């Protein structure tokens, strides 16, 4: 096929991402487990890229966990999301950035529902007004936080202090990208590259000099799905999915897993520890595990931010081997110190992970 034809087809897989003036909604899981990611995202947009972004303290959970557990009904979650939109309207913003892939899936599901069933939209307006006296507008532009990093990946590359290349060998790092199922598998047109060619993370890796690994189970679910892990006895199914992915990617010797979904990042990180305890099997070079990072953490690393300010020490799989591979300088003494220099407790080393 001619290049022009390819470009024409690829256009259909793109989405519009707003350039500035964003209203930001946070993620329950991310602000608990990777708290520095969201902080760095806001700092990157405001200080490094000079964008206008509003992090509203009145914003609440989208109730996605309750919704996917059949505790919160669709009518309720629509009203909660409508409240977020009303706060966005009140603050004078029309572009929304969603930090969480679960929330992103819910917002897209709700907006699509309203588009096809105007009577449901009218009912939601009525419910919100009766409950809170608020009114709302549907956002003009909706992006996931990884879309925003994707949009500005070249600007980040220009400001980068490091590239995703091993300075000693000169070879690019092998990077596995894992995209949350709810990002584009449900409503492909809302994701960069759609469901067939999601390139939101691969685009970042390419722009920053890394090598994207294509492995058999690349698009397999990480196993997170709320229903799969809420009941303890069922978690074997959840971990089996992650294990399937790890087994599939292992022969390609990945240096890093990059994920855009809070649940995927958390589970692919923590299940490696669980597998090591249950089966004595530790993935990664020298039985050190494969670090799982968020896109903001990776952006922060290439831009030369202190890895401990990016919160890498809060991950289950520690990132020192990765930092050495990237040639990033860091102080091991500062790893568990607060900003004002106090020493935090140092976690115990897992038995089967070789830190």
């Amino acid at each position, binding site marked *: 096929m001619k290049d022009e034809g390819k470009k024409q087809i690829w256009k259909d897989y793109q989405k519009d991402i707003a350039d500035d003036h964003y209203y930001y909604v946070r993620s329950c899981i991310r602000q608990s487990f990777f708290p520095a990611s969201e902080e760095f995202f806001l700092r990157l947009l405001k200080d490094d890229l000079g964008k206008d972004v509003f992090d509203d303290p009145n914003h609440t959970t989208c109730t996605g966990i309750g919704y996917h557990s059949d505790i919160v009904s669709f009518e309720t979650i629509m009203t909660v999301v409508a409240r977020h939109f009303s706060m966005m309207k009140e603050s004078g913003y029309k572009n929304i950035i969603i930090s969480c892939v679960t929330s992103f899936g819910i917002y897209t599901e709700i907006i699509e529902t309203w588009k096809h069933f105007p009577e449901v939209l009218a009912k939601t307006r009525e419910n919100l007004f009766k409950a809170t006296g608020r009114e709302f507008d549907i956002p003009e532009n909706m992006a996931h936080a990884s879309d925003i990093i994707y949009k500005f990946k070249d600007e980040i590359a220009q400001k980068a202090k490091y590239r995703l290349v091993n300075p000693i060998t000169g070879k690019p790092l092998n990077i596995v990208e894992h995209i949350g199922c709810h990002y584009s598998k449900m409503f492909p047109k809302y994701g960069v590259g759609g469901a067939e060619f999601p390139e939101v993370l691969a685009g970042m890796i390419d722009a920053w000099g890394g090598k994207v690994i294509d492995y058999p189970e690349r698009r397999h679910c990480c196993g997170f799905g709320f229903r799969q892990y809420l009941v*303890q*006895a*069922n*978690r*074997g*199914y959840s*971990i*089996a999915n992650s*294990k*399937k992915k790890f087994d599939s990617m292992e022969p390609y010797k990945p240096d890093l897993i990059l994920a855009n979904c809070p649940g995927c990042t958390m589970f692919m990180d923590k299940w490696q520890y*669980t*597998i090591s*305890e*249950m*089966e004595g099997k530790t993935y990664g070079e020298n039985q050190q595990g494969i670090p799982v990072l968020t896109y903001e953490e990776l952006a922060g690393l290439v831009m030369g931010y202190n890895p401990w300010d990016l919160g890498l020490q809060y991950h289950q799989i520690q990132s020192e081997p990765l930092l050495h591979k990237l040639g990033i300088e860091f102080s091991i003494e500062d790893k568990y110190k607060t900003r004002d220099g106090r020493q935090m407790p140092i976690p115990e080393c897992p038995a089967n992970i070789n830190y």
Partner: protein
Amino acid sequence: MSVFGFKINEARVIDYDKTDKRILNYLLENEPSFNLCIFCGSCTATCSAGNFTDFNIRKLKMFIRRGLVSEIATEAEKCMLCGKCFLVCPRGVNNRNIILKVRDALTKIENHEI
């Protein structure tokens, strides 16, 4: 091992790159017509033993492809070697000899010869 309250579920995926190919390879060498089978099931439909038991020669052939040695041993015992499966086979697969060769292969496995 730590107690987590759950176990890692074993995947039920059949990975043909990792299956036990000892019986399959022995068959392909000694009864190459095995490769002609299109899994139409005519052999099973006409099977004398299958009329009275749960013996299923088509299933046996699938087990051979999947390298499930203990299941193969159980199934291969059930055949009464009447040979009707050979007569009806549209591809000329010598099913009767397949059973004999499978039994040979099982003996060889037991004796660590293959």
